[in-house]
């Protein structure tokens, strides 16, 4: 598919409920497919966005379903950029250590895997504090 010169931007705003994860995945899947990614990479992008939004619902909004999650995707010069913004309070990714997988299994810790997966699945993962309550995570996948 010839799409390297294609430029577009799409946006989805949903409430912070796990009920909306299916809709988030569908939105991401269509945008990634339209950008020309292989099925394998579409799957990786969809999972990374699911993990990012799950973390927001769990940690930023602490399962309160009334917050907003704003997802915007754009394709810029072979870079597929996903920006996810929440208003759920400050989140510092630096305090979450990269898990040693073997230790993880031993200690029966089931959290923190989402961030690890996001880094494995995407080319860039960046967290920003926009202001006091607004956080942004930017996920980038290169269209090669």
């Amino acid at each position, binding site marked *: 598919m010839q799409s390297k010169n294609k430029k577009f931007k799409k946006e989805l705003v949903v409430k912070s409920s796990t*009920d909306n994860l299916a809709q988030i*995945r569908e939105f991401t899947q269509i945008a990634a497919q339209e950008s020309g990614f292989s099925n394998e990479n579409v*799957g990786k992008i969809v999972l990374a966005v699911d*993990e990012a939004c799950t973390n927001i*619902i769990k940690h930023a909004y602490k399962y309160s379903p009334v917050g907003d999650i704003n997802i915007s995707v754009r394709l810029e010069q072979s870079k597929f950029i996903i920006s996810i913004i929440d208003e759920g309070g400050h989140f510092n990714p630096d305090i979450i250590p990269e898990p040693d*997988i073997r230790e993880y299994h031993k200690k029966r810790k089931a959290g923190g895997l*989402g961030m690890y997966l996001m880094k494995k699945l995407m080319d860039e993962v960046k967290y920003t504090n926009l202001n006091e309550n607004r956080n942004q995570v930017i996920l980038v996948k290169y269209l090669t």
Partner: protein
Amino acid sequence: MADFNVNIRGVGSVSVIDLKGYLDAHTAPELENAFNKLLDESQYKVVVNFNDLAYISSAGLGVFMAYVETMRENKGDIKFSNMTESVYNIFDLLGFPILYEFYKDEDDAITKFND
């Protein structure tokens, strides 16, 4: 909204959990319920059949991590079977093959319990 289904079957002394659809943070509690039911019934030998599972996120993988030690402490285990390549790749990324057994067919996993 998410389309997900869990079913438990008994095959001899082994419990087989069939998963179908999309396993994410929204549907993972249904899988937890299934494992809690097995614990209530003292069923510790579990095979999870992934044949009809289309998608899994870390919330789903976390469920297996939460229950596997209890199963093993009671002379059981959680073994996996019939996984598609795309689902297996996620387990692989998170290091599961070091600590869990994966089988192509459910029967092989069941046989392993009966050895």
